[in-house]
C-alpha cells in the first residue's frame, strides 16, 4: 500500500520531467537542424523577402505606436520623480537610455511575438495538419528549408531594423511630452539627448532585436511544425508560441543587459 503510494508519487513527478526533457531535446534538434539549413543550399530567397516584408514592414504601425507611448510615459514619470533635482537634463537622459536599451527592443519583441509568432505557428500548424508539409516532401522540397529557414533568417535580420525605428520614435515621444506638456526648452533637450547618445546603447538594442527575432521565429515555427490534432492542436501551438516567446524574450533581455551593463 505504502509502496504503491510512493510509486504513484514518483510517477507524477517523473512524467512531467521526462516530457520536459523530451521537449528540450526535440527543441535542441530543431535548433541544430534550423542552423544547419540556414547555411546550406538551396535558399528560397523569394520566401525570405516575403517574410521580411511580413515581419518588418507590416509590424511598423504596432511598433511605432507602442514605442511612442513608452517614450512619452517615461518622460512623464522621470519628470515626476526628478522634479525636485532639476528634472530637465534627467528626462532627456533617462528617455534616451530607457528607450534604446530596453523599451524599444522589448516592446518591439513582444508586439512582433504576438503578431508574427502567432501567425507563424498558425500557418505552419495548419500546413502540418492539412498534410501540406508532407506534400512539400513528396514534391522533393525540404519543408525545413522552404518554411522554417526563411522565417528564422527574416526574424534575425528584420527585428534590429524595427528596434532602430522604435528608438527614433520612442525618443521622439519623450521629446513631444517634454516640450509640449512639461514646457522644457527644446534646444536644451535636444542638446542633452545628443550629448548622452552612445553607440553602445544603440548596439545593445540591435543585438537584443536579433536575439528576439530568432526567439520569435523559432517558437512560431517549432510549435507550428510539431502541432498535431486538428484545429485544437493548431490553437495550442499558437498560444504556446506567443507565451513561450514572450517569456523567453524577457529572460533573454535580462541576461543580455546583465552581460553588457554590469561591470
Amino acid at each position, binding site marked *: 500500500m505504502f509502496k504503491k503510494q510512493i510509486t504513484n508519487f514518483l510517477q507524477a513527478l517523473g512524467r512531467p520531467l521526462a516530457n520536459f526533457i523530451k521537449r528540450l531535446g526535440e527543441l535542441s534538434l530543431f535548433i541544430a537542424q534550423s542552423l544547419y539549413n540556414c547555411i546550406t543550399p538551396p535558399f528560397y530567397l523569394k520566401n525570405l523577402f516575403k517574410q521580411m516584408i511580413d515581419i518588418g514592414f507590416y509590424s511598423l504601425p504596432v511598433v511605432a505606436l507602442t514605442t511612442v507611448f513608452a517614450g512619452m510615459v517615461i518622460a512623464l514619470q522621470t519628470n515626476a520623480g526628478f522634479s525636485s533635482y532639476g528634472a530637465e537634463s534627467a528626462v532627456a537622459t533617462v528617455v534616451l537610455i530607457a528607450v534604446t536599451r530596453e523599451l524599444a527592443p522589448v516592446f518591439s519583441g513582444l508586439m512582433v511575438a504576438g503578431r508574427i509568432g502567432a501567425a507563424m505557428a498558425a500557418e505552419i500548424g495548419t500546413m502540418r495538419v*492539412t498534410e501540406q508539409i*508532407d*506534400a*512539400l*516532401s*513528396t*514534391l*522533393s*522540397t525540404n519543408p525545413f528549408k522552404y518554411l522554417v529557414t526563411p522565417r528564422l533568417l527574416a526574424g534575425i535580420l528584420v527585428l534590429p531594423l524595427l528596434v532602430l525605428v522604435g528608438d527614433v520614435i520612442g525618443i521622439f515621444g519623450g521629446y513631444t511630452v517634454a516640450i509640449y506638456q512639461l514646457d522644457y526648452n527644446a534646444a536644451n533637450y535636444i542638446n542633452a539627448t545628443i550629448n548622452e547618445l552612445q553607440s553602445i546603447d544603440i548596439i545593445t538594442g540591435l543585438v537584443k532585436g536579433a536575439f528576439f527575432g530568432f526567439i520569435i521565429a523559432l517558437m512560431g515555427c517549432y510549435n507550428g511544425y510539431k502541432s498535431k490534432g486538428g484545429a485544437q492542436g493548431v490553437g495550442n501551438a499558437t498560444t504556446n508560441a506567443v507565451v513561450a516567446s514572450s517569456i523567453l524574450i524577457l529572460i533573454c533581455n535580462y541576461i543580455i543587459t546583465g552581460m553588457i551593463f554590469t561591470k
Partner: protein
Amino acid sequence: MDKKTPRIVIKNLHKAFGSKIVLDGVDLEVAQGESLVVIGGSGTGKSVLIKCIQGLITPDDGSIKINGKESVGIDKKEAEVLYSKMGMLFQGGALFDSLSVWENVSFGLIENQKMPRKQAKKQAIKYLKQVGLSADVADLSPSELSGGMQKRVGLARAIATQPEIIFFDEPTTGLDPIMADVINDLIISSVKNIGASALTITHDMASARKIADRIAMLYKGKIIWQGTVEELDKTDNPYVLQFVNGSSQGPIKVEI
C-alpha cells in the same frame, strides 16, 4: 533496371507508435505499370504504409525496395533521387493555400526542375486540362475551388512531375458518387498516360473495383488477402467478405 523489376517490393515491414503496433510484417509488391489498391478499415495502418514507402515515416524494421533499390536507411542524397520519382494525391488535396492553382500544379517543375515561370504556367494549364479543368481556374486560389476541383488540382500536381509511382490516399472520400467516378476515370487515364505504377489506399469498394489491377487487404498490420477483382468476387475469405459487403457482423470486430 530491366522491365521485370517491380517498382516496389515491401518485405516484413514493421512500425509501432509507442505500444501501438500499426504495421506487423507487411509483404507487398507493385509491378511496373500496375495499379494496386490496398483496402482496409479506418485505423488499420494504410496511411502509415504509404508514408513509410515515401520516406515520411521511418519504419522500425523490414525492407522497402524501390526499383530494386533499398530505401530504408539510405542517406539523404540517395533518398532524394528515389523520392523525386514519386507523386502523391493527398486525401484533403493538401494544396498550398499561399500559392495560386497553377503555382501549385507546377510547384515541382519550378522549385526542382528550375523551369522558367512562363513555361511552367503553360505546363500547368496543360495538366489542368488533362484533369478536366479550364485555364480560367489557373489564377484562382485553392480555397476558391470546390472539394472535387481541389482533388483534380491535386491530381494535376501529382502527375506534373511525371513520376514513376503515384500514391492515392482515399481519392474519392468526401465526394459525391458522380464526382468520385470522374476522379476514378481521371486516375486511370492519367496513370496510364504517363505509364506510372499506382498504389491507392481506400475503403471505397466501388472505386477499388474500378481502378485496381490487383487488390490487397490490410488487417491488423498484415496483408491478409490479395488478388484481382475477379478473385475478389470468388473469395471465401471471411474478413474480405465482411469488408466488401460492409457488414457489422463477422470476424472483424470494430472497437467502439
